[in-house]
């Protein structure tokens, strides 16, 4: 791996720059892009480098997402910035009812090379309309692919792949990790969708996770290692297609599993993964799967309230304690 370090924001901008250079049908559309470079600076430099291909829109999420779809059906590769994952709610017909289904309901006549990108996640006192992690809705919707990486290497490789993919990809990035740095090689690379990454090898248990919870899991793992507990951290990176083989491998190795996400615990992706592990890998398990997720309330504003509601490294330690049946 190269010595060069980029932030997630820089990795994203570099991926877009490379793909826009490579393919003139790629364009970016969304709110506050040109003058502002995106609300997190994620498109900085691109409006100047690609005049007319970074397009500001009115505040019209329904039509932004739907216009992305219309353009994808007619020869373009749109990268749609939806500002906040919460705003997918105002574009839900376009994403879940139209983009996800068009290829299928028209009998495979057409490809839908569309990326819907949105920052998600809590922890910034952004309250109930700017903090949600809604990935489970989209994993639940046949026809979509869902990506949620956390480190710059993964962000860059997966954005490039998502743009080249011929299906609609919903791409989430946690808004607390935009400034997070990590090594990114100078030479070009792609990361296939549906490929998890082992962020830490361990032998006592596996934390299956993604997005910011990967970082929390790594932090927890460090603390747990001082207690003599060896934690394996599997970063799913892509939530659909799910890398079931990687899950199988790790579960068959450690026999104990925590599934962790920042999204609401109830009916979250963790429930699906835990259920499937118990259906297909029951004999591998030495203990029931333990889930970690947010409490089932909207995101409150005040810092102590928000902190109480969303999981952090401590939640993973608690889950491990439950899993191993011992006080840590």
């Amino acid at each position, binding site marked *: 791996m190269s010595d060069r370090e980029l932030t997630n924001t820089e990795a994203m901008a570099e991926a877009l720059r490379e793909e826009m250079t490579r393919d003139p049908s790629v364009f970016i559309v969304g709110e506050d892009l040109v003058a502002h470079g995106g609300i997190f600076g994620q498109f900085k430099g691109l409006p100047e480098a690609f005049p007319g291909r970074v397009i500001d829109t009115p505040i019209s999420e329904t039509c932004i997402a739907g*216009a992305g779809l219309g*353009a994808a059906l*007619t020869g373009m590769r749109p990268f749609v910035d939806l500002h906040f994952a919460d705003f997918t709610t105002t574009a839900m017909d376009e994403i879940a*009812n139209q983009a996800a289904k068009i290829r299928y309901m028209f009998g495979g006549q057409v490809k839908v090379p569309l990326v819907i990108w949105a920052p998600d996640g809590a922890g910034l006192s952004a309250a109930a309309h700017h903090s949600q992690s809604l990935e489970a809705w989209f994993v639940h919707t046949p026809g979509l692919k869902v990506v949620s990486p956390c480190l710059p290497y993964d962000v860059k490789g997966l954005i490039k792949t998502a743009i080249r993919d011929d299906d609609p990809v919903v791409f989430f990035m946690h808004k607390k990790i935009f400034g997070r740095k990590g090594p990114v090689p100078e030479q070009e690379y792609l990361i296939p969708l549906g490929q998890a990454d082992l962020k830490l090898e361990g032998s006592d248990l596996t934390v299956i996770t993604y997005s910011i919870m990967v970082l929390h899991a790594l932090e927890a793992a460090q603390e747990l290692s001082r207690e003599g507990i060896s934690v394996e951290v599997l970063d799913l990176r892509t939530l659909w297609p799910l890398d079931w083989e990687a899950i199988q491998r790790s579960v068959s190795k450690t026999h104990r599993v925590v599934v962790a996400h920042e999204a609401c615990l109830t009916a979250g992706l963790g429930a699906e993964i835990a259920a499937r592990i118990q259906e297909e890998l029951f004999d591998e398990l030495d203990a029931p799967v333990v889930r970690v997720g947010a409490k089932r309330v909207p995101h409150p504003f005040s810092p102590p309230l928000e902190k109480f509601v969303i999981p952090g490294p401590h939640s993973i330690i608690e889950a491990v304690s439950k899993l191993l049946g011992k006080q840590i």
Partner: protein
Amino acid sequence: MKGSPKAHEMIWLYRTMCRIRAFETKVQELFAANMIPGFVHLSIGEEAVAAGVSSVLRPDDYITSTHRGHGHVLAKGAEPRRMMAELFGKRTGYCKGKGGSMHIADFGVGVLGANGVVAGGFPIAVGAGLSCKLRGTDQVVVCYFGDGASNRGPVHEAMNMASIWKLPVLFVCENNQYASTTAMSYSTSVERIALRAAGYSMPGLTVDGNDVLAVREAAAQAVARARAGGGPTLLEALTYRLRGHFEGDPQRYRKREEVEEAMGRDPISRLASTLRKKKLLPEDLEKSIRKEVQEEIQEAVRFAQESPYPEPEEALEDLYAGDVAQAARGGLA
């Protein structure tokens, strides 16, 4: 396209309306005979809108259609046999039996799809218009919708966006007076949908939607404007739905006399009479058109009936374009 249509263009309009009528009348019969599953929404009485608009479009222009879309799709060039097969749920249908009446698309002739969601076509049409602009083509997009759709939010986002970017989109309101069972006079804040164009700085025109020549003329102007980069137009065509909202609709919301009165304004008879006056539709031509059209629809029905149903497992195909095996690896496709 400007000016009066030539004789052959008028005959095209007549033939196209007859084809739509024949297709839908047959669908009506087949549905009543339990041979077509699901829901069916017919546009009988509204054929002049689809025919008039399509007559000024090129094969490479796009349309987005609605749940009442058989006419739009046929007029744009879709094949009746593949449409009929789709309505029967057969493998040879446009969507291999996955779409049905409300989801017919033919990307080969620019039909970006009928849509089961009222106003669902608006954002897609804007995106197609943006795509034409970005690709530097002079293609035009027609977004068909009904009076009911005009009250949905995406309409307003789409019209605003099409206007600020001067996109080559023609919004065609097929105003048939009823949103399902609710009269426009109750549900809509304006007397004419076209008035709403003013809110988006685009021309708004209302025409007699049962007069195919009037529809054609207005559409020709709007399409020419869009092609030349002048931006979108809202064209409202006043028409009337002679059948229920869906086949089987008890139609408690309107009086029989109202429907009977509207039958007197039938767009096909109207064009026929104009053509006869102009001596453009001699009896033998009229007969031969009707015969041809009937034969075509009969052939479509035969094709649909003789086509196989898909195998049940085909329900798992066509979800993803990319690496299907990889996508499926995540579990049950």
